[in-house]
């Protein structure tokens, strides 16, 4: 089994806000992230797939194909967007780094089906070089 990881970057704005809470509670829990005017990050997305290298090509998956899938399914929707206002899944879920990792998994898992014997193993999203979240498809 070999794991293969492709890295991509996108820049987006967001804010943290739970509509069910008062403004005071939102500001207490989320601090500066609750500023409704938003703020932004340069995100790094790491997509890891796992499988055996194909005996003919030596590839787990074709990296160019994987790059195109990531660009089409995730970057086209997230890059240079306001996540809360322009991305459907964040109308109901707060665009925390954890939720972005889960959402990117949901966007990529069906599209990576044609990868044959390789499967999506892990999504890691860096919000800054020091902060990241990971989703491995667990319930």
């Amino acid at each position, binding site marked *: 089994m070999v794991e293969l990881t492709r890295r991509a970057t996108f820049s987006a704005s967001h804010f943290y806000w739970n509509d*069910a809470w008062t403004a005071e509670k939102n500001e207490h829990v989320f601090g500066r992230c609750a500023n409704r005017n938003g703020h932004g990050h340069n995100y790094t997305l790491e997509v890891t797939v796992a499988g055996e290298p194909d005996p003919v090509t030596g590839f787990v998956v074709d990296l160019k194909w994987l790059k195109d899938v990531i660009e089409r399914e995730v970057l086209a929707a997230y890059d240079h967007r306001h996540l809360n206002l322009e991305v459907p899944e964040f109308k109901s879920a707060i665009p925390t780094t954890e*939720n972005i*990792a*889960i959402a990117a998994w949901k966007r990529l898992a069906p599209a990576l089906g044609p990868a044959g014997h390789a499967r999506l193993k892990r999504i890691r999203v860096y919000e800054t070089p*020091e902060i990241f979240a990971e*989703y491995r498809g*667990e*319930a």
Partner: protein
Amino acid sequence: MTAYFGRRYTLSASHRLHADALSADENRAAYGKCNNPHGHGHNYVIEVLTRGAVDPETGMAIDLVKLDEAVRTKVLDRFDHVNLNLDPLFVERVPTTENLCKVVFGILENALPKGRLESVRVEETENNFFQCWEVEDDFVALERAIA
């Protein structure tokens, strides 16, 4: 849904790799320039990976403020800008980065709510790093015994 949340911290410390059970020659052979009697130092990166169910109300898997507090009080305050060899946990344990990784894992496993620590990764330089997912030693009992 279970997600993982990671945070990277830095600390600077000195150490000397030297095993009392080995002769001077054996120590030099095993540890090379890391056996220099006066020690040397590193800017370590401590990468803490936690796991938890994403809270639907906050979208978060762990309280970052509490994580920062635990790492600061239990790890950074203790090991930043010190000589690791002088810490009680390294009296009988050579402060290799493997052992630093295990010690930090053991300390944080006890400091964080049960089952929330996934792994600890320690980068000694940009070119080498160590990761640990479990430790056999009971660091709470060890610290009590040392105290």
